[in-house]
């Protein structure tokens, strides 16, 4: 009986969901998705390389982790993987992600907190080696290329440290431009 009720509430929720979202919002969202997809559709045949899916999803404003992406890609791939993802499959999945606001943005504050956690000695800055150690060994490790690229933007050239507060402000600003 409990299951019945909960099933019912799910159905109702999705109905409301549908109800609340007017056609315009769905269309606008889908057009955004279509635009982003087209940028990577090099052969103009409504397919993109599966390795670009992460970039597309992120450029639409989402912050998935690598693990999240793996799951999404598994969903999007054909039964016999071709290395390409078709738009017909991508559109509904992406629409859902956007409308449900999954993988919400990481705020500047949160990012700052994360750096502060890594700054164990509370120096107010991080050594390049420190940051490299964390980001290439922990979590979902960076490749050497990713690490080098971040360091090139993050390291203060005079002091040879990462003033992470400034770094975070700058990156957040860059991102919004």
């Amino acid at each position, binding site marked *: 009986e409990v299951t019945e009720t909960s099933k019912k509430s799910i159905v109702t929720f999705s109905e409301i969901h549908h109800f609340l979202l007017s056609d315009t919002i769905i269309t*606008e969202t889908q*057009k955004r998705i279509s635009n982003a997809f087209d940028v990577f559709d*090099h052969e103009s045949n409504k397919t993109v390389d599966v390795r670009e899916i*992460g970039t597309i999803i992120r*450029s639409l404003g989402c*912050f998935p*982790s690598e693990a999240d992406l793996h799951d999404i890609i598994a969903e999007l791939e054909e039964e016999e993987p071709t290395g390409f993802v078709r738009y017909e499959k991508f559109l509904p999945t992406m629409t859902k992600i956007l409308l449900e606001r999954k993988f919400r943005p990481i705020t500047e504050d949160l990012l700052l907190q994360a750096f502060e956690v890594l700054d164990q000695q*509370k120096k107010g800055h991080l050594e390049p080696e420190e940051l490299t150690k964390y980001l290439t060994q922990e979590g*979902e490790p960076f490749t050497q290329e990713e690490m080098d690229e971040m360091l090139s*933007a993050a390291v203060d050239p005079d002091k040879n440290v990462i003033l992470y507060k400034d770094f975070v402000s700058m990156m957040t600003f860059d991102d919004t431009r």
Partner: protein
Amino acid sequence: MGCGTSIAVENQTHPSETDGSIRQPSPALTIKAAILIQRWYRRYVAHLEMRRRYTWNIFQSIEYAGEQDQLQLSSFFSFMLDNFTHMNGNGPDLISHLLDSVVDPLTEEVRQLKYEQIVVPESYCGPRLSFPLSVTDTNALLSAFKEEQTLHGKYVLQLLYETKKFLKQMPNIIYLSTSYAKEITICGDLHGRLDDLLLIFYKNGLPSAENPYIFNGDFVDRGKKSTEIIIILFAFLLLYPDHMHLNRGNHEDHIMNLRYGFTREVMQKYKTHGREMLQLLQDVFSLLPLATVIDNKVLIVHGGISDKIDLDFLSTVERHKVKSALRLPKRSVDHLNVHANIRSSSRQSGRSRLDSPCSSGRTSRASRRRKKHITKQGSCSSSSSSSSSSSSVCSPRVSSRNTSRRPPPSPSLPSPTDVLQVPFLDSFVSLEPPEPPRDELERQQVVDILWSDPKNQSGCSPNSFRGGGCYFGPDVTQALLQKHGLCLLIRSHECKQEGYELCHNGQVITIFSASNYYEEGSNRGAYVKLGPELVPRFFQYQVSRSTRKLTLHQRVCVAEGSALRALKEKLYAHRSDLMAAFQQYDIDNTGRISTSEWAQVVESVLRLDLPWRTLRPRLARLGADGNVEYESCFEDISPGEPIPPVTPNLAETLYRYRTDLEIIFNIIDKDHSGQISIEEFRQTWKLFSSHLGVAVNDQTIDDMARSIDFNKDGSIDFNEFLEAFRVVHKLVIKEQQQG
């Protein structure tokens, strides 16, 4: 959901943190923090990557669209021809201006003597070449060019002359071997980018017996150091004839050079001898070999192939006859023959013809979409895949294809190509080709080699839109390779973001060596090395203007800024069309329309096939109600000028036809002196304005001609020429205000 909440929770469950002592955060927390930063950063990079990609798309689309403007020039040519008889008899013979190259009837020996006798002043401190060349000479050239010196005209002439002599004895196809366990380095388009050439030499060593090179065409145009590049390449060619090889590209063509900057560069650097150099270069370019084959296994050509290419036939072609891929419409032949008979008797058929323009057939997104559009049109003749690459067969398709792509003509500026189509059709259908079939076949082979592009779909579709070259599919590649026992095709011709690209199941390599081709940061350059095992090794590079390494963000911003500026210019150039269409949606005259409507209008007018919604934040402002303030996309265009009133005005024309005007000016300016006579200007302006359907009366033109000759010396230079447009605009506005 998300890391945020969990970190906060974590903090709260560590009461010891409040006592101020330094505690190690739990490993779990560290991991969470790391993941969060990684997640965030990857998203940041993806955002940059998106911007980089659409910047690339913008460049490609505009370049492609710009090359379609070539058609306007051709239509202007045919218009001029058609109206030749309407010009008053006092006018200069513009047609002969177009067709005559100023032929200097010197014999070879006399010419050589003449060059030797050129005096080089003592004060000249650049390299002094002595023939036959030695390593000292090539080293001197490299040092001099690194120091931004210019080689004296005498040596350039001698170099070109010797190169021409040398190339005359070369076959069309050069066969090389890697039998000495040498690796051969193959480079693609350089387009006047000296820095890239120097970087290649730095990374890979100078050409020598141990280090052979093949340069696969397009040495000149667009970049500013085309002259230096060909000097270096030709010098090495003469120094190491067995180890240095040059293939002809589609830009080794004097008509293309008029359009894309090489002619101008030569004339600016060599005011005395430039004209003669350009003369020599016409011959030198047409004498460059067409193809190279390594170990009878790897074919290297600049553009590509078609289903008509046969290497045996190709090796018999008289390549020097194809001076330019561009030809006049055949209808003008009658005119030509009349004048040809009156003039000199010996005019090579290859020289005096300018055709429908061949812009390089880049398989950009726009072009592919365009092709798809074509097949949907249900062309009235045979299917595209089976017809030949001959331009004469495809005329019915030309018209349908063109009219489907042209933006809707604005009321007072009819699309120039409307004027084009009918003459073209007539010419192809009604006239017999004046050239004998064999010559025509030969020309086709050469044009196909220089202009074709690979595509992913099977078949070989002619690019009759441009009058030559094809899009060739994997089946065409496979067939040709098999026919001649080859295993690989290396070609250039198309800019690739990574400097190289493989297609057709790895049977085709595109190699492109001009990094930052569109803008700083737009793409890498690359070269490929082949050893006896014939496994390609790729080497990439990117020339950087600054010594400090730019961050990804900085690189993207520079390229993006440039692309967006170019895009905004396009918007401005089509202002009246755009405004008219915007206003159709803006019934209540609020100055705003929805993003959807804005995107739709812009695409329908500009036809660049770009992701407008993604680009919108960079191009136009949103109002408070979330709709697009459409006039805001015309801001920041002409520095310091207020937005002019929205009447079809010639300031737009200036933007739209600026490059064409320069070409026209260069053509009128026969002796490349940088000046044209007022009379020539009058004649040309009259034609041009009637061609555009802009009504300007004789008196106005006279006033204008007088007024733009600022220094009153009776002749007009290019800047004054351009100024004419602004002046006329003012006159027209004045008229409107008075009228």
